């Protein structure tokens, strides 16, 4: 089994990267691989817990929550979080931790593969 690291730099909805990242990470977890994901730049908008849209039963934060439930470790860049006014991630779904680039450096030294989206 392998350890997969992800860096996601785009937010929910507007561009497709969040979906691709969730799809790859989910498939990896289901095959028994480990997943560590770092949310950087607009990537930190993905786990905001209050996302609601009448027509969409599954929101981006639900896809992130699914990864957490399957064992993914998810860290958001604190400088990016504060720059975007997200108050240290107080409105994030449970399981998403706010950290910094040193956490990403640690992911880099731990994983077998690195995917940036």
């Amino acid at each position: 089994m392998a350890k997969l690291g992800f860096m996601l730099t785009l937010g929910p909805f507007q561009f497709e990267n969040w979906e691709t990242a969730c799809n790859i990470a989910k498939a990896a977890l289901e095959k028994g691989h480990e997943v560590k994901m770092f949310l950087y730049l607009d990537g930190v908008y993905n786990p905001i817990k209050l996302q609601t849209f009448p027509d969409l039963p599954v929101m981006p934060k639900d896809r992130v929550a699914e990864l957490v439930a399957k064992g993914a470790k998810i860290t958001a860049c604190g400088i990016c979080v504060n720059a975007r006014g997200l108050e240290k991630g107080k409105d994030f779904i449970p399981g998403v931790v706010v950290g910094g680039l040193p956490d990403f450096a640690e992911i880099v030294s731990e994983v077998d593969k690195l995917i940036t989206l």
Partner: protein
Amino acid sequence: MVQRSVLITINRPPYGSIYYTEGLRAAVGVTSGIDENIVTVVYLGDGSYFTLKGVDRKDTDKYLSTLKKQGTRLIVQKESLQERGIKESEIETDFEILPTKEILDLMQRVDFTMDF
């Protein structure tokens, strides 16, 4: 945990998106771990515009000087410059100019790649 080598490509030009500077912040960040991973930065395609002498580097200077102090190589793809009609004399001396083949050689030797 082990020391890792990472090749970071910057593909987007300044300043239409924030990647030209946040890619460098990430480069500094990757080297900041206890294991001191090793980073190489390569400018490809429109990213090569960042290496022009006249670019305003107010918000990137601190990252560039940290990277230089660490001995990080900053590379721009020769073919990208040629395609854009940029002469080598127009490039800031901080950047090495390398052909695609040598960039691929570097890519073969690193553990990971990242793109901005």
